[in-house]
């Protein structure tokens, strides 16, 4: 076994990520890094324990996979249920769902950037761990912290207005939604938007400046020339409903297919050391067919963004490289902020659309198709819900490919790159451990989600020696 000739380092738990995970670094005899694994340590089994239940319950059960993006599961599930009922939902229902989805993008991206990642950017990877968190940000940069809090609140309020709770709301039902939007609610949403949008633009400038000042770091930090996957509609960035597009590292469109055919194109590889599977594009096989998703994946996959301000920002983003495809992992943060801008603009469009005030909310049907697929862009990437039911509608089989899973290969590669470059022997600086964790934070993984199946993720690094003995476990404190 390779353990006989390697030693390992473990980081456990990985913190400031959403879920539970650890990193294991295997060392060679000379102290160099043999390999590094990002282990997702939790397993929950949603695919299995929902069997036998009525499919109509799924939009309420599946959000419990993840409290950070419950809306994604809620909506993907509702879409799969629509397909089982064989209905096309009304324009009002579809726009209300999309509005809630924009609320979620705003809140979830704000959480990822302000609450979880900004401490590394503001204080540096080697700052004192005691202040390197949102409380530290609140103390030193109160305005930024408050902005993060208000932005998250804005998104959460949209969700609560429609679904009556901020976490695990209930709004979508098979065939539509259960509640319309009231006039005063709409006006309030419109009112809160302009100030936040302006401040968001300041934050975008801040991140751009950071990336410029740290250009060398940005260029080499876990950079991966990968393919990118995301939904598009007529070539534009799409978050709620569209075709799946895969773009090659050189910028060519490798493939584009209907989300209903996803399983013909996407397979999932299994490794013994992680509960999280490794999705890949079947025609290219594993690992060659691995790709990245989430903000960077989407803005690379699309041709353009349909709203003006986000489109202008995207043009600037693309000017960073010659061929317009950006492989720098730290640019996930920039891409994430561009998507918040899009979510604001799109929410504004929706709120000004007469359909959003409509009362035609639900299409009923007696039909039961034996299969339904719902695909959506969750904040962290493409999310697939696929149900098979019996003739009465009881669940027979469920397949879920969760956003974060799509980045599993890239997260592992990135951690390994940082480890190989910085680790010699068992004496490892805390800042190196934190950099490995930051690779993971860039992808903003939601391990609760990805392991639905599995789910949890503070970080621990274990160093294992060539005989397979644990040399050192680093709990950062």
């Amino acid at each position, binding site marked *: 076994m390779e353990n006989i000739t390697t030693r390992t380092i473990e980081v456990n738990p990985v913190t400031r990520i959403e879920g539970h995970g650890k990193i294991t670094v295997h060392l060679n005899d000379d102290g160099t890094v043999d390999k590094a694994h990002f282990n997702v340590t939790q397993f929950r089994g949603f695919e299995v324990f929902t069997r036998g239940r009525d499919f109509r319950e799924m939009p309420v059960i599946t959000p419990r996979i993840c409290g950070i993006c419950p809306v994604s599961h809620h909506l993907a599930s509702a879409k799969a249920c629509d397909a089982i009922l064989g209905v096309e939902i009304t324009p009002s229902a579809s726009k209300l769902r999309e509005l809630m989805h924009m609320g979620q993008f705003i809140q979830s991206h704000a959480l990822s950037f302000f609450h979880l990642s900004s401490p590394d950017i503001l204080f540096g990877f080697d700052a004192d761990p005691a202040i390197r968190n949102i409380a530290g940000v609140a103390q030193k940069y109160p305005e930024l912290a408050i902005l993060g809090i208000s932005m998250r609140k804005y998104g959460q309020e949209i969700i609560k207005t429609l679904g009556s709770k901020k*976490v695990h709301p209930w709004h979508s039902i098979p065939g539509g939604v259960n509640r319309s939007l009231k006039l005063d609610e709409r006006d309030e949403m419109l009112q809160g938007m302009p100030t936040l949008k302006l401040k968001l633009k300041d934050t975008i400038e801040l991140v751009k400046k950071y990336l410029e000042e740290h250009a060398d770091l940005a260029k080499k930090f876990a950079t991966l020339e990968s393919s990118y996957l995301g939904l598009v509609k007529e070539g534009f960035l799409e978050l709620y409903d569209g075709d799946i597009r895969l773009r090659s590292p050189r910028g060519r469109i490798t493939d584009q297919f209907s989300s209903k055919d996803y399983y013909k194109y996407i397979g999932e590889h299994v490794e013994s050391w992680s509960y999280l599977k490794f999705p890949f594009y079947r025609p290219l096989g594993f690992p060659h067919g691995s790709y990245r998703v989430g903000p960077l994946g989407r803005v690379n996959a699309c041709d353009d963004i349909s709203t003006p301000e986000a489109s202008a920002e995207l043009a600037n983003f693309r000017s960073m490289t010659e061929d317009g495809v950006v492989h720098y992992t730290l640019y996930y943060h920039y891409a994430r902020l561009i998507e918040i801008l899009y979510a604001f603009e799109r929410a504004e469009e929706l709120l000004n659309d007469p359909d959003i005030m409509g009362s035609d909310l639900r299409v009923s049907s007696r039909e039961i198709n034996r299969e339904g697929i719902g695909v959506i862009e969750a904040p962290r990437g493409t999310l697939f819900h696929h149900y098979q039911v019996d003739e009465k509608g009881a669940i027979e089989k469920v397949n879920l490919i969760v956003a974060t899973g799509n980045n599993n290969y890239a997260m592992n590669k990135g951690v390994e790159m940082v480890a190989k470059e910085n680790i010699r022997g068992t004496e490892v600086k805390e800042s190196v451990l934190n950099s490995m964790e930051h690779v993971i934070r860039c992808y903003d993984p939601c391990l609760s989600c990805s392991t639905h199946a599995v789910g949890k993720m503070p970080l621990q690094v274990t160093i294992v020696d060539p005989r397979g003995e644990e040399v050192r476990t680093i709990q950062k404190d």
Partner: protein
Amino acid sequence: MSKPKIATTWLEACAGCHMSFLDIDEKIVDLLAQVELTSTPITDIKEIPEVEVGVISGALGNEEEAHIARKMREKCKILIAWGDCAVFGGINCLRNFMEKDAVLQEAYTNTVSTVNPEGIIPGEELPKLLHHAIPIDHQVKVDVYVPGCPPDPETILYVFQEILQGRIPKVPVDMMRYD
């Protein structure tokens, strides 16, 4: 009095309980000024220190989680079970109607998109699953129960305020909610 130290963790959970804590919004700034956050999923302290208050969200589903729950109990004076999962196991218990190995088998070899010709079931470098998902008080003594999936932000704030007043909180009936 020095600021009371708080440690929180999520075990077999969806993170929603912690999100609901963040949903107290601006009030969080005030609260953070009055308590000292030690090890939590949103800070970088990995080892649980001696604390006044320990908060656990999530059920127990594997050996590592059970171990963390016991450790939290050792290190804290007041232990709070936070959310339906911690209080009675919550959604995770749905897997208890099935054999653990069958659940793993299905998830890793049998779903439509899985490509696993060798039938690998993950387990290496990973904690062992418990036979059943269980609420935390099957393993440790709990002082305060806060149900809800997740508990409302107002309820969470109430609990912390009581603690800051030096009382052991009891969630009033009108705030008790099971989802």
